[in-house]
């Protein structure tokens, strides 16, 4: 039985106190950073004031364009990789013999760090959006494939039998038991595919690009523009937060029937 050790017998802070303390902590951190930067001259750490200035400068110029580029790579890549991964996962997952025979191959593919293939993809597709899109598509395809594949094999056989006894045809059994039964697994894959897509796009851009947030970082680094590096990190962090929040909401909505909450960082 899971008992949240923390919040029992008045061990928890009230909501207001928590938010107040958080705000104080945040302000304190920013103030300390600013002070540290002023004291050391800001060569390594820059200062929040400078970072804010850089952000405003960028916002007036082409920050939106870079964000849009990164988003485009993510969205298009996911749109390709996710459906393919799910489809192949279901098809192969329900054929147990094929599944067993393909298992070593699949395990090997699972061990390849997809993001490390970025140089290869750049070699193949050159400059532009394609290599990043392919990278995101490949990563999300593999993720969704593995999860769906495992899920399709894990559907409770007794549930399927129960439907069969009621008179369900094979197609109805698939629609009403197998497919929904997979969604937990598919969700696990999707939930991780979103952040992973952001990582893939960023890596690709850092390696070779003229646009995108990853490019902003490596470009700023190349010019020793510390404020620029931190500014780009801030934007990337905000994007990451949005992506994670989206993934959590999506999972929460699709899996609202789940009795116990899964840990926040869980992956497959």
């Amino acid at each position, binding site marked *: 039985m899971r008992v949240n050790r*923390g919040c029992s017998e008045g061990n928890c802070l009230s909501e207001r106190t928590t938010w107040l303390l958080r705000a104080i902590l945040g302000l304190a951190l920013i103030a300390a950073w600013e002070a540290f930067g002023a004291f050391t001259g800001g060569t390594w750490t820059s200062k929040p004031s400078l970072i804010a200035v850089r952000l405003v400068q960028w916002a007036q110029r082409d920050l939106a364009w870079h964000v849009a580029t990164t988003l485009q790579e993510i969205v298009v890549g996911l749109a390709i990789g996710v459906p393919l991964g799910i489809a192949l996962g279901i098809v192969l997952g329900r054929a147990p013999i094929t599944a067993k025979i393909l298992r070593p*191959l699949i395990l090997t593919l699972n061990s390849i760090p997809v993001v490390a293939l970025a140089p290869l993809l750049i070699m193949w597709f050159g400059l532009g959006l394609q290599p990043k899109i392919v990278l995101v598509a490949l990563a999300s395809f593999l993720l969704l494939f593995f999860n769906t594949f495992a899920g399709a094999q894990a559907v409770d056989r007794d549930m399927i039998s129960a439907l069969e006894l009621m008179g369900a045809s094979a197609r109805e059994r698939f629609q009403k038991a197998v497919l929904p039964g997979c969604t937990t697994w598919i969700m696990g894959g999707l939930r991780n595919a979103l952040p992973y897509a952001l990582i893939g796009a960023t890596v690709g851009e850092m390696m070779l690009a003229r646009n995108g947030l990853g490019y902003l*970082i490596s470009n700023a680094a190349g010019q020793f523009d510390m404020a620029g590096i931190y500014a780009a990190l801030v934007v990337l962090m905000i994007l990451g937060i949005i992506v994670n929040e989206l993934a959590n909401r999506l999972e929460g909505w699709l899996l609202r029937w789940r009795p116990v909450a899964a840990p926040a960082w869980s992956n497959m």
Partner: protein
Amino acid sequence: MTTAPSRDRSGLLILAGQVLVILLVLAAWYFASGTLVKKFILSDPISVAQTIAAWIRDGSLWQHLVVTLQTLLFGYGIGAVCGIAAGLAFGVFPRVDSVVSPYIVAIYALPKIALLPLFVILLGIGIASKVALVAVVVFFILLFSTRDGVRDVDADLGAVLRLMGAGQMEINRKVLIPATLPWVYTGLRVATGYALTTTVVGEALSSNRGLGFLIESSSVRFDSAGVFAAIVVVVALSFLITGVLGRFEAASSRWRS
């Protein structure tokens, strides 16, 4: 109705099928390169094997492998120790956890690889910047898993010991630590994959040594055989690490069914 001999036979058939599939893939690769696809794009199994052999002969494989392993071990070690410590702290002091947690989540949302240019400026292009990156990645994973493990410990277990007269330190030793351990192991296991990936990608982005560097330098020279060769070594390393870790975990977690 199954009997023992036929079960062995079907197992053998499956094994044969698996081997066949792998051979087919290799054969398809071999025949596709040069005919369907240009050789320099895809290379072929033979060239890749030859490249690996050449690397072994001239010692460069070991050189780069050692660098990658060093980065991996140092980064993993530092990150794990710090992550477990932080996780324990946050788990045992939930009030601190609830205040700090939005900031932790925010930093976690950042693709950590983006920190690499910063680390390179601060720590140089050598091994230190990659170690720092891996340490950050591993830190977060162990932080969350340890904290969740502490949170998950059944409060009743501690209460029972307290009624017997146990002090807090005894409860920590006899209940908290053993109950949190499986969560820590899960975190350690998950972190190895991410650590290896981060190491290789970090080396590919900015380094002059390591397996990641081999991938990047081969790709810049359009040496596809080299790229695939380096990837093969990375995959082999991944299998090795997973295998070793699996043995270790199985031996020490027998009470968990």
